[in-house]
């Protein structure tokens, strides 16, 4: 997955960055060497070369700056590229997931994964990659460079390194466990907050403020406790790492004092002294490189959690796979053959042995109690789920064999809850595949059919008026009418109306149905409804109960043959009205 996130371009860029950093480290490691030479000259009293060496050092320092800018530029590109790719990959994956996959993740979680989590990982790459590449190079190269001068000094430095390394991994391991919990409770706090805001009227109505506050306080407290214990684990590591280079410096000097006095001859001693100064510079560089990684490593636990969450999305295989067929064998027909379906994790069958056929141009209504499987049935036609057994055919083709887009192009679907996008009314009505081919006239016609003409005309800019996200500036009934207009605008072969009139008052409902009947001449209509009035003239009515078809036929037939239907009808209409 990392290779996919970075792409060929990202990997090449990293290779370039490695080369640039190698050059930079070479220059950085060269600078103390000059210090050694200068020191040699000082202790041996040759002043003439100091300025010359100093100039060369400056050139190196400046060169190192330029190279590091170049490396920084390349790496900035890598991090931004990785962020871009992750976002796009997630977005694309989510767009091809089934409804079931989405509800497993929850939309809210997917949003966080596509935005905040990506930002976390991108930040980590931006700040961390340079350190991760540079630190080992400095550490290894630096140690090699100085290893010949004294076993003891090298041992002290390597010992300091080893302690830091062990401490670092241990800290990260133990803190990592805490940070995963932190992430969990962060989610819980967010969930509680959202819940509290969404349910505020119910909470007030039940005087349940204390109950909600208690729940929130508990999550918040857990979040705090886990954060604090992670902090406890992390606290000593940075100060220790910071102090380590000082400890090692003192150690080198103390050992150095013995080593220097152990050799004979003043000149040799001065050379060793100068050696010691240079060695200390390198030792500091080597140990500071660990510090560099350390600073980055502190970001690891969070970045890792985010990365895992992103990865989970990208690697999800949509539970509904695409087919290959684009052309139907028939036109405007829908057929269910012995279809059974149960939701994953549920023992109950949501639909059982459903068989029926809808001919072109006819209207089939589905009625039944809450949880009887009406919406599930409709969802199967749209391939939001796949049946466990049996098959769903649209235009004579099993929906699993269709390229999903071709399947969906045939259908004008209006869901139970109207979904509205931020943008103009036009954009909301003329939406989706084929929208380029439709004109403002089509939009107006669709709005007229959906009985939305009047209220749209009253908006400040009519069809071009802006609708805010989730249609917050519209009423429930207005949203439903826009959603219906969206289906009408496509002029589909098959309409699927899933209880789409529930927020409309009866007058609007009636006018809409009449207009729709004129409009849908020749189109197949599958309508899920609660109201008998909406469906009583359907060519066929299917009565669903606990996932089974318990009655089918026309209104009059069902009134005689189907007790459940009769019961539903009686609850709505008086005896005279029924006939």
């Amino acid at each position, binding site marked *: 997955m990392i290779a996919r996130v970075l792409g060929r371009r990202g990997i090449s860029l990293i290779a370039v960055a490695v080369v640039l950093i190698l050059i930079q480290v070479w220059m950085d490691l060269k*600078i103390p060497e000059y*210090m050694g030479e200068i020191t040699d000259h000082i202790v041996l009293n040759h*002043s003439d070369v100091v300025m010359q060496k*100093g100039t060369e050092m400056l050139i190196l320092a400046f060169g190192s*700056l330029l190279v*590091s800018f170049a490396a920084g530029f390349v790496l900035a590109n890598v991090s*931004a*590229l990785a*962020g*871009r790719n992750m976002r796009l990959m997630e*977005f694309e994956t989510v*767009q091809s*997931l089934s409804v079931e996959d989405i*509800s497993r993740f929850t*939309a809210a979680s997917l949003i966080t994964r596509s935005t905040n989590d990506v930002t976390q990982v*991108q930040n980590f790459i931006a700040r961390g990659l340079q350190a991760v590449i540079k630190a080992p190079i400095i550490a290894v190269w630096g140690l090699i460079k100085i290893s010949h001068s004294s076993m003891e000094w090298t041992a002290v430095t390597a010992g300091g390194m080893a302690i830091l390394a062990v401490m670092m991994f241990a800290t990260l391991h133990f803190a990592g466990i805490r940070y995963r919990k932190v992430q969990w409770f*962060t989610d819980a706090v967010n*969930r509680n*907050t959202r819940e*509290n805001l969404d349910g*505020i009227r*119910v*909470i*007030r*109505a*039940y*005087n349940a403020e204390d109950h*909600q506050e208690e729940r929130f306080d508990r999550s918040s407290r857990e979040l705090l406790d886990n954060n*604090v214990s992670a*902090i*406890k684990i992390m*606290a000593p590591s*940075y*100060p220790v790492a910071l102090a380590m280079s*000082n400890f090692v410096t003192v150690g080198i*000097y*103390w050992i*150095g004092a013995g080593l*220097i006095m152990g050799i004979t001859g003043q000149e040799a001693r001065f050379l060793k002294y100068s050696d*010691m100064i240079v060695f200390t*510079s390198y030792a500091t560089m080597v140990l500071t490189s660990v510090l*560099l990684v350390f*600073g980055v490593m502190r970001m690891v636990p969070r970045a890792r959690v985010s990365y895992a969450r992103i990865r989970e999305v990208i690697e999800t295989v949509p539970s509904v796979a695409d087919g290959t067929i684009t052309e139907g064998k028939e036109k405007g027909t829908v057929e269910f053959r012995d279809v059974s379906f149960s939701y994953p994790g549920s023992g109950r069958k949501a639909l059982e042995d459903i068989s029926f056929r809808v001919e072109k141009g006819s*209207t089939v209504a589905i009625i039944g109690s*809450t949880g009887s499987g009406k919406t599930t049935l409709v969802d199967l036609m*749209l391939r*939001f789920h796949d049946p466990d057994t049996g098959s769903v055919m649209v235009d004579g083709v099993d929906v699993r064999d269709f390229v999903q887009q071709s399947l969906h192009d045939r259908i004008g*679907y209006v869901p139970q809850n109207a*979904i509205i996008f931020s943008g103009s009314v036009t954009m909301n009505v003329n939406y*989706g*595949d084929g929208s380029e081919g439709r004109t403002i006239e089509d939009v107006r016609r669709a709005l007229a059919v959906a009985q939305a003409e009047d209220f749209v005309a009253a908006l400040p800019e009519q069809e071009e008026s802006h609708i805010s*996200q989730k249609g917050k500036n519209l009423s429930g009934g207005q949203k439903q009418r826009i959603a219906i207009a969206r289906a009408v605008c496509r002029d589909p072969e098959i309409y699927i109306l899933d209880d789409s009139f529930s927020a409309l*008052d009866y007058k609007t*409902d009636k006018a809409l149905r009449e207009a729709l009947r004129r409009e849908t001449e020749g189109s197949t209509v599958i309508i899920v409804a*609660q109201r008998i009035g*909406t469906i*009583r003239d359907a060519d066929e009515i299917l009565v669903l109960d606990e996932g089974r078809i318990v009655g089918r036929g026309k209104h009059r037939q069902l009134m005689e043959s189907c007790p459940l239907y009769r019961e539903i009808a009686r*609850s*709505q*209409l008086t005896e005279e009205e029924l006939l």
Partner: protein
Amino acid sequence: MTEAPKGGKLSPGGDHGPQLSGSYWSKGVSAHNIWPPVKRLFGYIGKYRWAIMIGVLCTMIGSLLSTIGPQYIREISDRIYDGIVADSLDMDTVLGLSLIALTIYVVGMIFNALEHYIIPATSERVANLFRIDLAHKINRLPLNYYDNSSTGDIMSRLTNDADTVGHQCGLSFSFLFSALTTIIGCIIMMVWTCPLLAVITVIPPIVGFAMTRVVLRRTQGFFRAQSRYLGAINGQVEENYYGHAIVRAYGNREAAIREFSATNDELYRVAYKSRFITSTIPQTMAFIGNLGYVLVCVIGSMMVLNGEITYGVIIAFILYVRMFSHPLMMLADAFAGMQALAASTERLFELLDAPEMEDESGKDLDTGNTRGAVEFRDVCFSYIEGTEVIHDFSFRVEPGEKVAIVGPTGAGKTTLVNLLMRFYEVDSGDILIDGVSVKDLRRDQVHSLFSMVLQDAWVFEGTIRENLMFTSPGLTEERMIEACRAVGIHEFIESLPQGYDTPVGERSGLSAGQKQQISIARAMLHSAPMIIFDEATSSVDTRTEKHIQAAVERMTGGRTSFLIAHRLSTIRNCDKIIVMRDGKLVETGTHEELLAKGGYYYELYSSQFENCS
């Protein structure tokens, strides 16, 4: 929502400089605005103020010790140098000096570690304090506050801003004082050791620092653009994920990806530029460090050759050079952090200061014997000033009456309920329960007079049992099951693997209708003198609805009840029907009376039974 590492002081330009989110740049609080909110903040956080001060003290001691350390290293190297010259070295002195140096560094380390615990842990505690205060505040705000602000904005204050304040209130001050201590300590030590080298060491970092500030100021556009595109991306993601079913069913996938990709590419372009700019800062400071190193080596060497200083001075200065480029960046971060702190603090206090509902603890009328007579007397109401939605509304309901409120969408039915529940206060007129104005009762008293089921069924994260019983914990299992049977959901719950202990919530998999059934059962269990059903059964089929109605009637007996329903069949048996239109009372009477009248109700009623396909 949480920021990356806590308490780190490494490469501050990277860790706490311009963040990808561009937060420092978009909030735009200028320096003179920092103090008032910060001052108020420290008053607010009370005892945590002392913890922060202790943390800051620790960091100051740690920094001070680290500026003293090099003096002993200088001493050691001079002793060795002298030893070589004199051909004799007292190893005990070297050991003694080494031990002192070690002790200084160890003590410094301990203080640093203390600070690394105290500051971030206090940060979390402050964040927790604000989170809880804000969460409680939410419950004390009048509902109209929520009409004017988005859920997302309140959420963001409670999470992001509370976190930023927690994070920065400790960190930015510890950065500030640590930097100041180091700078002042270093300067004193260096001047005391060798004034000329001190000047040479101090000037390059200051010049370099000033340069980076200029660069940053000139490139703010990139950071702003970055946060703008990030916002746009978030919007697109949210919308397309929530509308996923429609995006799929309408084949808008390609178009959505195209649109997203375009914004995403724009974001990429500004993101890598701003990241590059950010990355040049620590690199420039590293160069400045190298530059100082070279200058100290060259000029120091000449001075050693001239016999003006000892060799140990160079070594001490090499250490000071490394120490000195750091705190300037920390200062910059401290100020950036304080800006973020001030901006977030203001947002927190904005919410905390929002006027709360009136304190009503003084109202102690007894509502124990409420009979349930309700009267609206010339009630006028507007959500937004100047746009009245309820006009001169008057009606009277006798105890035990069943009242239906009908009317087209937008007529103001739900608003009536809002007023009755005192979710909102009337502009003029009065609402009386048993002749007592609701204004003379406490809100919680008014609430407890009603069992209420709302249009949007609300289920929280928890088990089904918790969802049913959370307001009336003393109830028996039998009562709970009875209520669930009555609304026709008992069998369904029993069929679930964990029965009544099945967790539900966002991922519950309950249908809208089942959520409504649970809400209704909850209302039944919460037995109050009056009942409000606001479109409560719109997602429940009529058969189940009939069950529910029968059950509700049985369980609530002669209680005053208010029903709002579009489905007129459900209200036929009501004692009184109130017909509303555009916030006005059009007509009132029984079903038969209204039909006989042939008015607006007749029109509404007859329209639902006309044929259609």
